[in-house]
């Protein structure tokens, strides 16, 4: 990470440490999920490793508790920043009772958290983009002081759903931020087979909204970009498309084997650019954190992850009697 002369004044040292904490926590529970998956503890994991800076930079630039989030499956760090707990994530991995996004009906990483304004998300990529436009429309309709951010992978911007959703926001100048986490792959398919433009941000030119590319490995650069887009959106200035270039440092998911389509050298090179390490080094270098304090963060993360996994392991599976509900809103049990 570059050392910056001037960064957004809101970004106090305290806030930066909070950001680092979430990045670290996300990384550690993500790594643990890979491990437990390999041990056969659950059938599936999809990872955000390499995306943390983009996600945390974006989340912290929003007004958590007030703004809305329409994330996608890689956004573990983003939803942790919005208030999902590690234990709740672990419930999802194991399909346990009380999992808050879906009552364990959906696969892990299919986010949704009513208390944090994170709407329920599904698997078909691109469908969330029009939802974000609709939320933006409703915010404007109501005159509320909120904005909405929706994220997506670069491959999924090939979907007509994405195009139509962004188009709505551009036409109606809705308070929506479209964050594209560009990791250059859609499972095995490289960006060059998804689009003829060289940056996703160029797609904004065809849709009539501002578009920028930021280094998604630099949490502060992402924060700054999202913050100014958020300020503009909140002031009635309309939507922004932000492309954050990131690294998918793992296979697509636990079902994937990326050796079939990319070299080991490519993976090795990524490790040099690890966004979590980069932010740690930056904080140390800037004397925002001491080595000792950093070590404490590490051990606290380990403890929290252990506790989360233990909690989920000790939790029973959902009751089968509840499986057929609620298909309709009338079926929802209140209280």
């Amino acid at each position, binding site marked *: 990470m570059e050392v910056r002369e001037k960064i957004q004044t809101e970004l106090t040292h305290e806030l930066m440490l909070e950001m680092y904490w979430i990045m670290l926590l996300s990384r550690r529970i993500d790594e643990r999920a890979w491990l437990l998956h390999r041990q056969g503890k659950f059938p599936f994991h999809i990872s955000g490793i390499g995306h943390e800076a983009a996600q945390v930079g974006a989340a912290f630039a929003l007004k958590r508790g007030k703004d809305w989030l329409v994330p996608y499956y890689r956004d573990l760090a983003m939803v942790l920043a919005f208030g999902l707990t590690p234990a709740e994530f672990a419930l999802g991995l194991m399909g346990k009772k009380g999992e808050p996004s879906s009552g364990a009906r959906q696969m892990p990483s299919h986010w949704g958290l009513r208390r944090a304004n994170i709407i*329920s998300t599904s698997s078909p990529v691109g469908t969330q983009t029009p939802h974000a436009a*609709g939320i933006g429309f409703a915010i404007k309709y109501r005159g509320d002081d909120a904005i909405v951010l929706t994220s997506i992978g670069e491959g999924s911007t090939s979907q007509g759903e994405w195009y139509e959703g962004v188009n709505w926001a551009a036409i109606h100048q809705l308070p929506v931020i479209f964050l594209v986490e560009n990791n250059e792959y859609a499972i095995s398919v490289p960006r060059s087979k998804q689009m003829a433009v060289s940056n996703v941000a160029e797609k904004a030119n065809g849709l009539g909204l501002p578009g920028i590319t930021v280094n998604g490995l630099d949490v502060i650069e992402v924060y700054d970009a999202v913050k100014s887009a958020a300020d503009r959106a909140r002031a009635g200035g309309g939507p922004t498309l932000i492309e954050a270039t990131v690294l998918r440092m793992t296979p697509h998911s636990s079902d994937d084997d990326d050796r079939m389509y990319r070299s080991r050298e490519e993976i090795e090179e990524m490790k040099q650019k690890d966004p979590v390490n980069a932010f740690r080094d930056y904080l140390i270098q800037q004397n925002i954190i001491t080595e000792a304090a950093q070590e404490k963060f590490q051990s606290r993360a380990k403890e929290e992850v252990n506790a989360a996994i233990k909690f989920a392991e000790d939790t029973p599976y959902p009751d089968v009697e509840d499986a057929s509900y609620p298909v309709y809103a009338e079926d929802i049990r209140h209280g």
Partner: protein
Amino acid sequence: MAEVTLIEGIRQAMDEELARDERVFIVGEDVGPRGGVFRATEGLYEKYGGSRVVDSPLAELSIVGMGIGAALYGLRPICEIQFADFIHPAFNQIVNEAAKMCYRSNGAWTVPMVIRAPYGGGIGGGLYHSQSVEAFFTHVPGLKVVVPSNPRDAKGLLKSAVRDPNPVIYFEPKKGYRLIKGELPEEDDLLVPIGQASISRQGKDLSVFAYGMMHYYTLQAAEIVAEEGIDVEVVDLRTLLPIDEQTILKSVEKTGKALIVYEGNLTGGYGAEISAILAEKAFVSLDAPIRRLAGPDVPAAPFSHPLQDWFMLDVSKIAAGIRSMAEY
């Protein structure tokens, strides 16, 4: 009581719901100054303004998709799809998103929205302005599917749909927009409950199940065969999903014979489900094979009018179907 057309019932429902609840808004192609290509939203743009009666881009999936988002935030969208034939681009949003939201979020999120779409043939619309697509949606748990056959139900069901906490697809028999007329009771707030079929004609010889335009024709056919001594019970299904099994079963327990009439393609159509329910749950009451009278298995009603007439069911074809059933 005033006699009004079916489309006037629809328009009144929207007008009243827009006035009643400021969360309600309309979105669709040409619903604004144009008042809708069929004029269902006539005058509403002038009355409620462009922020509540919203001309959308020409893009159905995002009409539904933005509606879902708005509903999640707390609004009550009425999405208009200009013709049911053009609902297909929105299939993913309807089936994978709107319908599954409640279950997939374990009730944390719901999608209170209405999708209105004119359906059906006989208006010279050819393959793409004549389709009956209800069976694609009656296979989808989480949706409600409604088809009115008269102005009163059109109004009362649409008002109920707007207030329903679930996604409701509301198919409008467009050939009947101005053809079907009826009395509208001067009620302050006319609501017809979703989920109930209605016995629109009592009879004892056989039961005919129909909805929308075909129900309109069936009632006429029933009067014709009545003069020949065949006493038909007509059931207007009205809500196709969830299915009012009780009313359906009771009718066949009484008459012992069932004919199901629908204008869409025969194979895999909505009538198959009604037949399957009866074949399982009313088996002992059945005195005759269950029959379906439906559109032929070609893509949709062709344009050229003799071909269209060949495709479409009408009063005399339905009467013939009833006679042959009665003879069994």
